[in-house]
């Protein structure tokens, strides 16, 4: 599903060169629930952003579903993200002026292969799945953190993406809400055969992942990736 070959990302901070990723090679299979773990500054989020087409690698190659993403134009990348990828961010990243229903429908509204009836039905369906159908007319500020993250999950899933990327989705949640969200991830992964790539640094999340890759200083940690 995803092939990563010798991926490197170097940031320049003044005269200092920081190697955020220093030659990552990795394959991710379809339907896999992959956990990316490691200490702060190890390059977890940078790797996720590269895979999610949110940032450009300095060198290396990423192939998703047979497509070399470095060859895509800016507009094609936008469309690729819209049609094939879903995102969940640490801070929920909902549009504060839109209701739950509008937030969830937003990516679906832009798809050329969905009409109004379809995206309403899809949004309604996914909101039912995350258990927030009764809150569909509320604004994000009227919801708890856990509820907002479930809305974020619904928004990411409304277009039925090939891959779901989650960047520490439970970082701002208590353990009870974290568990609700992770159970939803598991359910989606199992019932829809959804590929999920998730960054986390909580040890107790491990039980949800099919496989875990550990990063340290921008490379796969050889000691832990046996």
């Amino acid at each position: 599903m995803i092939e990563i070959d010798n991926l490197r990302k170097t940031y320049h901070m003044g005269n200092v060169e920081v190697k955020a990723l220093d030659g990552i090679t990795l394959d991710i299979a379809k339907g896999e629930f992959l956990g990316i773990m490691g200490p702060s500054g190890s390059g977890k989020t940078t790797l996720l952003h590269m895979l999610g087409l949110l940032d450009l690698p300095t060198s290396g190659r990423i192939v998703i579903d047979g497509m070399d993403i470095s060859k895509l134009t800016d507009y094609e990348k936008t469309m690729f993200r819209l049609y094939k990828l879903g995102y969940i961010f640490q801070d929920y990243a909902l549009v504060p002026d839109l209701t739950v229903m509008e937030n969830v429908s937003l990516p679906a509204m832009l798809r050329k292969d969905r009409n109004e009836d379809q995206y309403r039905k899809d949004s309604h369906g996914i909101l039912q799945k995350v258990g927030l159908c009764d809150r569909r007319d509320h604004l994000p500020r009227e919801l708890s953190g856990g509820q907002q993250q479930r809305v974020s999950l619904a928004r990411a899933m409304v277009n039925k993406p090939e891959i779901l990327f989650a960047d520490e989705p439970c970082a701002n949640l208590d353990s009870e809400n974290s568990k609700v969200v992770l159970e939803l991830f598991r359910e989606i992964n199992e019932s829809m055969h959804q590929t999920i790539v998730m960054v986390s640094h909580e040890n107790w999340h491990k039980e949800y992942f099919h496989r875990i890759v550990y990063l340290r200083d921008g490379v796969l940690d050889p000691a832990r990736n046996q």
Partner: protein
Amino acid sequence: MGQKELKVAFLLALRSLQRGSRSSAILTVLIIGMCFTNMIFLPSMFSGIGQSITKQLVDYEVSNVLVSPKSGAQYITDIGTTLDLINGMPGVQRASPQYSKGATFKYRQRVLGVSVRAILPTDEKEVSPVYTKMVAGSYLGEGDTGEIIIGRPIAGDASVRQEDEFQPSLGGVRVGDSITIEYGNGYTKDYRVKGIYATGWSPVDSAAFVTWTDMEQVEGKTLDKADYITVRAKPGYTEQFIKNELLAYGVGVNGKVQTMTDLLSKSIGKVLQSFAIINMVSLIVSIIITTVVLFIVITIKTINSRKQIGILKAIGVDKEVIMHNYGFQVIILGILGIVLGIIITLVLAAYMSVHPIVTPEWSATLYITPWDLMINSVILFIAAIVAGYVPAYQVSREDIQTAMRA
């Protein structure tokens, strides 16, 4: 950019205005409304003054076409024949001559120098609306002798002391009072005040009218000359047509024929040009203020929303949608501001039609045409769009990582 993308951009814009900072939106609309009012108020006021002066010049001085003495001549002569000729022409409603003579008015202890104008009352009524401006008594009749109508400033006010008067007067003459008039040729006669008028046009209000017959008594002979002849056109006939007719019939041999437009371009053309310059300055300043304000408002909005913009792009919202989102916000704010500006302007116009600005020389209201409203709306709308789209374009081009880190 398809219909779906525009629909999403509009939804984002609408929700941002509906559920975002109300005070910011209201203040922005208010500023645009005030700028619109500023753009249209001063030009409309100057147009009103121009219209007022033009109307008063036409009504009380030159009518549609003025026949005046030729260069070097003091009077138009052979007035009887000339009037018959002009009144017989197609398109002419009526021609009315005026003959003025300087005189000294005496009433009780007051003495005042006044220009006395001789008229043919019946003809003059068809050319000038002075007869509709009587504030006391009545207008002159055709055969009246020994009777005079005077302007209100000449009559004066008995309750105002002489040293407090704005302009010298006879100190409170009323209809029926007798005043003594001593003409420049030494002829002296007592007149009964038949009426007092107030037109608001200073040169006429500072004069007095007697009949042609009366002036013939003053001159001691048949009066076959005039200072000028004013000609009123029938509805549907242009001034130029009348002028051409008069020239074709030879009136130009006896006098100089000028249309109201010819005269206006000479008399108040410079004034109107000055007004146009002030209007242009006012317009440019208003447009700059509106553009700068909207630019700042949208720039602040986009800076505050950089992270959200980054997230929208991350989830697959195209940069064009993001740009048009802010563009639509400016369009909505611009339309609301312009509507508010139109309402404020129309309320001001209605108020000033009841309470016009009055000076001794003219009175003015706001003169606004639908074209003025439309053209100013379009100018302001374009300025608003430019001011909104520039920061929106800039922020929508920012890369996702930079925007999300903001």
